[in-house]
């Protein structure tokens, strides 16, 4: 049994990400069933001059792997660097190009800082399948808030925050404004193609997700390479095959898979054993009329012997104790 992960770093070898290799080792050294956070060293320029900060996400839709929130920030008067780095909508770029831009960003660590929150598939499921139903939107917003707060706490002089929206931009913007009242905040649809600082954040998120999948180690001990589980999008035939092949009849899937996605849920319904959760059943039955009630008409029936059912004391009923044998 492992101990719960504190965020203390001495137990890990990699604590600073300087390349794609160190990005991979940073992620793979940490527990992939828990969230992983990283914030790059903040350059002095970001502490001296007012900065713009971007937030975007990668891997919200796929049925497997982590969802990654990314941030990047740089001084307003240095933002030309973003154009030089060719930061554009990460979805328009191929994987190789994104890796290149990310590497160039790392080389400009004197001007641009970045951070990620890798939300594990297990923690996404746990949130969505918790009693209080912590929604994916709330998980997303909390990740964004965590990154913004970390940037502010690092001493960076953040002035304007740009966020790619989750749900309705107006509502989200108003919500962020209540949390960060002293900052300028812009929440917009497709912010990653409009604002280069959001594109940069989006690239950090996407690159981190791709590499997190590449170094994914199955706690279940399965020997499956990332090429064998695919992108995680429901339409991907490789992912489809993986969901069929790696199904365990009792446990369902390895924890790389997001159980709370309908693709996974439906696939399990067809192949794995049916599972009934006690509490969920009980909650459903709450509205039903209480059983064992004597109906009014029964009092008018002429019966010689009223049937007496010996009931056990409530003490036993409450403890789920019944007598199985007469001694």
């Amino acid at each position: 049994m492992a101990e719960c992960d504190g965020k203390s770093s001495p137990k890990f070898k990699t604590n600073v990400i300087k390349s794609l290799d160190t990005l991979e080792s940073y992620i793979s050294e940490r527990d992939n069933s828990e969230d992983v956070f990283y914030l790059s060293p903040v350059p002095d320029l970001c502490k001296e001059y007012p900065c713009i900060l971007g937030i975007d996400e990668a891997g919200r839709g796929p049925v497997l792997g982590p969802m990654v929130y990314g941030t990047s920030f740089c001084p307003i008067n240095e933002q030309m660097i973003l154009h030089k780095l060719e930061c554009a909508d990460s979805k328009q770029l191929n994987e190789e190009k994104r890796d290149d831009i990310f590497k160039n960003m790392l080389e400009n660590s004197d001007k641009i800082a970045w951070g990620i929150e890798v939300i594990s598939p297990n923690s996404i499921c746990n949130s969505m399948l918790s009693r209080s139903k912590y929604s994916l939107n709330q998980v997303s917003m909390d990740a964004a808030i965590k990154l913004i707060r970390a940037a502010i706490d690092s001493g960076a002089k953040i002035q304007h925050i740009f966020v790619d929206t989750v749900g309705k931009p107006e509502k989200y913007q108003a919500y962020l404004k209540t949390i960060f009242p002293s900052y300028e905040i812009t929440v917009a649809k497709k912010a990653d193609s409009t604002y280069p600082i959001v594109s940069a954040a989006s690239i950090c998120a996407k690159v981190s997700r791709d590499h997190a999948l590449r170094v994914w180690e199955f706690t279940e001990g399965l020997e499956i390479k990332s090429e064998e589980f695919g992108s995680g999008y429901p339409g991907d035939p490789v992912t489809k095959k993986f969901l069929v092949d790696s199904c365990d009849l009792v446990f369902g899937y390895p924890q790389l898979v997001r159980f709370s996605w309908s693709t996974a849920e439906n696939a399990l319904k067809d192949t794995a054993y049916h599972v009934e959760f006690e509490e969920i059943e009980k909650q459903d039955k709450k509205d039903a009329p209480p059983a064992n009630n004597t109906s009014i008409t029964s009092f008018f029936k002429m019966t010689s012997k009223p049937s007496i059912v010996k009931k056990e004391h409530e003490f036993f009923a409450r403890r789920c104790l019944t007598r199985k044998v007469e001694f």
Partner: protein
Amino acid sequence: MATIHIHPKAQFAKKNSKLQSMPFKVHADCDANVEQYFNSYVKTTKDNYFKSSFRGYPLLGKEVPVPDGYVGLVLHESIKPITEKEERKLRITNTFSNITFWNWDKVPSKNDSIIKALEWIEIAEVLHSPIVEE
């Protein structure tokens, strides 16, 4: 009511199994890859509970010891009774001294069935022990 015969296997006392009580029912009777898919993920939280997941559901667990002077038995019945009045023969396959009790996203507490059921043992002892005059 039926009579239950319990047949101990000679070596039963040696086998101490790891028992886990889950808040769900799997509609199957088979071996499961518990070590691989479940135990490998179990963690201890700061306040000394266990934490794990099953099919994405968050679970919180606690070790519940079998009371002193008692031993837990895992019984197996090869021939299922047809009527309630039949004599039943059960075989001991394992013993246990702890149960890991799991709840769905709720800290195990005194209000949970197994923990409450075990209270009866203590109460029964008090109820059935002879009254000693002072």
